[in-house]
């Protein structure tokens, strides 16, 4: 301790040259008394010194130190008496100690410097046989003036060195790297964090290196990937006295390839003339934070790209480009097709081909630093491809964090591909299904003429809940029109079921009621209540006698036109799918040449107009004197079209059959 040394030296000077016994005390600016030294000449000195060091003067004593401190004036005791000692002693033991000093004379001097009492000096003689007089007091005063100054300076430097020590302790334990250098000059201070950051063994190694040497250990890039030199860093700007903005750099250690993200901050320190004399650099390691940020951004952007389109070849290319150069120098996506062939569908960055080109060009071999391949897989399913990443030029290395990120990316890519496939499949199914539900081509029935009209309501104008069908059966032809209660995909499924059940049953059994019973049973097997209304007509014609057997199931009656007069025909009966057993009653109609039978669904009658619905009467009127199926259909289409106000909710199907004259 600087102070301790000073005290020791001072007391060595005083004892034994001037005194046999001396004590030195300091008074802090707050008034705290502290005995900082004692020295005794002669036998038993150590014990006496220790005792004196522990001793505190009695504050109220009218003589000696207390008086010197209180009065800020020195005082002399020429002949030390027991009374004096008693006045100075705190107790009997203290008195014995003072007596043991064998004091004959003593001087007590306050030490004053810079306008305040900074301590006190007490000197005594006795064992050496000397005595003090006034002259000695003067000498002691002169001496103490010097002592006071020395003590004060020592005290100050103690304070400073204490401060320095605390600062050093702080800097040593700081996580951030701190480097202090002279502008354009050497590094004068570095903390252990700086040494770790720079990959050196100790702070001492840092201090002995030049900034250029240190820069040579790394490749440094800015956020966009452009290389940086020492001149670009804030430290250099600060060295010119300019407060530079903090700069985030990507720092790659040349020897190991390790990459960090560092935030450089530099502040100049100016002298009295305003010239920069030091630059304090603080370097913060933001690698973890930055990598987490980059990873999140990459995943978010990849997610956007993947969901932007179902054309996954396109989106995968975007993803590969996103991965470079953030995650790697090269990225490729490979997918295994249904035929088992693995195909590369996307690539970005400097990869094998570029490397091969370089090797061919230079004739030198090249080792890729790292290749990371992750599967494109969704949990629980086999992988459908792979995502490959490689480091070529940048000298970086893959680590655990990169692996986790790459796996997550692979997972998202796999999901996107899977979604695209599912959508394509579903699309295909939907299209195929739709095609099967469209009204069939009307066949040519010998002896009859047909016309039909179909209008689905709603947005999906292709498929609805109404259907018609015409097919040959043993003994004739069946014409059916039907209406599924409800809308949407479920209704469309029932439409399909109904058409094909009736067709199959009709072809097998040749009988309308039997066909309806079949459909009724099939509908009863459906979950929930599935209702379908049907009008089923069997056309039989033998030798000029054409008849129509018609059966209704929950369906409005068809209109029989004879000589232009429409008349509803048929017996009402329950919907199909409503009851376990139904009584469906056939009606047999003789068809003369020119007779028409108009089958329709309730969508025609329920068409919403300005004030009311289309209704049966209006339909009858519309059909009066219609000259044939085509005209009948056209009339209905036109009348309904004219009558309708706004979008309609129900589908419309019409089929008209005319018995032709025999040829």
């Amino acid at each position, binding site marked *: 301790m600087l102070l301790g040394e000073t005290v020791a030296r001072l007391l060595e000077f005083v004892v034994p040259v001037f005194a046999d016994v001396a004590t030195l005390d300091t008074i802090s600016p707050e008034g705290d008394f502290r005995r900082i030294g004692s020295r005794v000449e002669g036998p038993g000195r150590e014990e006496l010194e220790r005792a004196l060091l522990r001793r505190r003067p009695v504050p109220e004593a009218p003589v000696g130190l207390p008086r010197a401190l209180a009065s800020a004036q020195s005082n002399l005791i020429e002949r030390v008496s027991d009374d004096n000692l008693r006045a100075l002693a705190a107790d009997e033991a203290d008195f014995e100690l003072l007596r043991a000093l064998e004091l004959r004379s003593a001087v007590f001097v306050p030490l004053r410097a810079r306008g305040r009492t900074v301590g006190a000096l007490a000197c005594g003689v006795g064992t050496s046989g000397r005595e003090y007089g006034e002259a000695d007091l003067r000498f002691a005063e002169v001496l103490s003036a010097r002592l006071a100054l020395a003590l004060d300076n020592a005290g100050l430097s103690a304070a400073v060195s204490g401060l320095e020590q605390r600062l050093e302790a702080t800097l040593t334990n700081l996580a951030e790297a701190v480097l202090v250098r002279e502008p354009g000059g050497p590094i004068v201070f570095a903390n252990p964090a700086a040494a770790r950051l720079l990959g050196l063994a100790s702070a001492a190694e840092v201090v002995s290196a030049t900034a250029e040497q240190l820069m040579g250990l790394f490749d440094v890039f800015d956020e966009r990937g452009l290389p940086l030199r020492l001149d670009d860093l804030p430290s250099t700007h600060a060295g010119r006295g300019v407060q530079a903005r903090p700069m985030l750099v990507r720092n790659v250690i040349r020897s190991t390839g390790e990459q960090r993200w560092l935030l450089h901050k530099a502040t100049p320190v100016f002298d009295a003339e305003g010239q920069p004399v030091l630059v304090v650099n603080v370097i913060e390691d933001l690698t973890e934070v930055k990598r987490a940020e980059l990873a999140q951004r990459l995943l978010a952007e990849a997610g956007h790209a993947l969901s932007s389109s179902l054309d996954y070849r396109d989106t995968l290319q975007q993803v590969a480009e996103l991965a470079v150069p953030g995650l790697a120098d090269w990225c490729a996506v490979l997918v295994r097709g249904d035929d088992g062939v693995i195909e590369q569908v996307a690539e970005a960055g400097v990869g094998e081909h570029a490397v091969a080109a370089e090797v061919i060009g230079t004739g030198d071999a090249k080792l890729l630093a790292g290749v990371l391949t992750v599967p494109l897989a969704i949990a629980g399913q086999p992988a459908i491809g792979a995502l490959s990443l490689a480091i070529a030029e940048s000298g970086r290395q893959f680590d655990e964090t990169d692996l986790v990120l790459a796996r997550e990316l692979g997972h998202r890519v796999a999901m996107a591909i899977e979604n695209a496939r599912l959508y394509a499949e579903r699309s295909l199914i939907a299209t195929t299904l739709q095609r099967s539900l469209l009204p069939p081509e009307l066949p040519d029935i010998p002896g009859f003429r047909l016309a039909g009209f179909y209008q689905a309501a709603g947005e999906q104008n292709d498929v609805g809940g109404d259907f018609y069908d015409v097919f040959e059966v043993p003994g004739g032809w069946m014409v059916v029109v039907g*209406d599924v*209660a*409800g*809308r949407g995909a479920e209704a469309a499924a029932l439409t399909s079921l109904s058409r094909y059940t009736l067709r199959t049953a009709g072809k097998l059994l040749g009988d309308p009621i039997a066909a309806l019973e079949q459909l009724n049973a099939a509908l009863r097997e459906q979950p929930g*209540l599935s*209702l379908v*209304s049907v009008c089923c007509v069997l056309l039989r014609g033998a030798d000029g006698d054409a008849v129509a057997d018609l059966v*209704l*199931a*929950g*369906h*409005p*009656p068809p209109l029989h036109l004879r000589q232009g007069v429409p008349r509803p025909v048929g017996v*009402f*009966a*329950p*919907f199909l799918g*409503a009851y376990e057993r*139904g*009584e469906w009653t056939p009606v047999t109609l003789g068809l003369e040449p020119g007779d028409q039978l108009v089958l329709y669904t*309730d969508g025609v009658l*329920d068409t*919403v*107009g*300005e*004030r*009311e*619905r289309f209704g049966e009467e209006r339909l009858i009127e519309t059909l009066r004197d219609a000259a044939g199926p085509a005209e009948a259909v056209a009339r209905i289409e036109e009348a309904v079209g004219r009558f309708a*106000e*706004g979008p309609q*909710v*129900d589908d419309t199907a019409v089929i008209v059959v005319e018995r032709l004259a025999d040829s």
Partner: protein
Amino acid sequence: MRLTSHLSLNLRRTGDVSVVRARGDIDLSTLAEAMAALDTAREGAGALFLDLRDLDFMDTSGLRLIIEEQRRAAAAGYRFAVVRGSRKVQRLFEIAGFAATDELFVEAPPPPTGGGDPA
């Protein structure tokens, strides 16, 4: 100008007898409301009446609702009946094979003061 479908429903509860009175149209566009009213009325009811006297129009979706309620009532053991509507409305039941005298139909809902229900 256009004829628009609208439906207003009124539920009256006396003891365990629920009466749902429908005014307007029961079709595809108002079906959900009609279903909801029946769902509410059905809860804890020993008898449920659907009063169609003020109904302007009903299509097959309404019919389906009624057939469904019929099935539900038969399975759960409560009485379900429909108060006869206008000729136009009843025509729909006719097309669906319901006889005019079918036990589904009643002339009027039970009076509010309770007591036996009129046939």
